[in-house]
């Protein structure tokens, strides 16, 4: 049996964007086809398209969450615009931006959690696994985003 391995980083990207969770057969198809002699470049292109397609599928399936992200973004933009228009002092501006930015990050993470929870439940997995998903996948990302948010602000 051909045990050729696809590019590690591409596999990691598929895993990071959780294509493997919601679309496991797709990842299996990519591996099967790669082992018939496809190139690493082919795998990269396919992995990129798989991430894009999976995101599209998720957004289509969860339009209400997409709307929530849009509303969050608009609210954040309104805060930024108000701070600029009303010439709020610099220190206070940083504080307000920090709080609203973190709130926006929380909204996005919560939305992601709900989307994944729904996908997970659709796959007939248990509630414990959903909790594990939150712990394993979303918490580390929350820390990274938190740090990134503070750095930017």
């Amino acid at each position, binding site marked *: *049996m*051909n045990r050729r391995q696809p590019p590690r980083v591409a596999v990691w990207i598929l895993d990071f964007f959780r*294509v493997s969770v919601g*679309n*496991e*057969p*797709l*990842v*299996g*198809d*990519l*591996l*099967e*086809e790669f*082992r018939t002699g496809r190139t690493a470049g*082919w795998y990269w*292109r*396919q992995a990129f*398209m*798989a*991430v*894009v*397609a*999976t995101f*599209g*599928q998720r957004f*289509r399936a969860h339009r209400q969450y997409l709307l929530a992200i849009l509303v969050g973004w608009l609210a954040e933009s309104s805060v930024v615009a108000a701070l600029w228009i009303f010439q709020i002092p610099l220190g206070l501006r940083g504080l307000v931006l920090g709080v609203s930015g973190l709130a926006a990050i929380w909204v996005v993470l919560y939305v992601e959690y709900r989307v994944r929870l729904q996908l997970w439940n659709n796959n007939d997995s248990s509630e414990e696994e959903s909790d594990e998903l939150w712990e394993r996948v979303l918490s580390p990302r929350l820390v990274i985003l938190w740090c990134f948010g503070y750095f930017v602000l």
Partner: protein
Amino acid sequence: MARGGYLGEFELMVVLALIRLGEDAYGVPISREIEKRSGREVAIGSVYAALERLEEKGLVTSRLGEPTAERGGRAKRYFRITDSGLNEARQTQRTLVSLWKGLLELSGSGL
């Protein structure tokens, strides 16, 4: 006139590939079939996205197979066209043929 939306170009390709392959069609043979006929590389992710939309419309059904070692322990997802899917493909064919008829520019004689 049939109710519901028309099949998009890529969706139609996927439906026709599914009809050609019959039973036990999954992502790899479907994308190979489209690649063979169109001569262009096909993203398996796009095939799945199209199949997902078709399934939502009730034009195809799917079931999971058993995980296999050569696929890294992942199962295959088998797709099958439904009666509504066949009707929709026929309707699209009729519409396209009707639109195509009498177009001299595309028949070769008009060039």
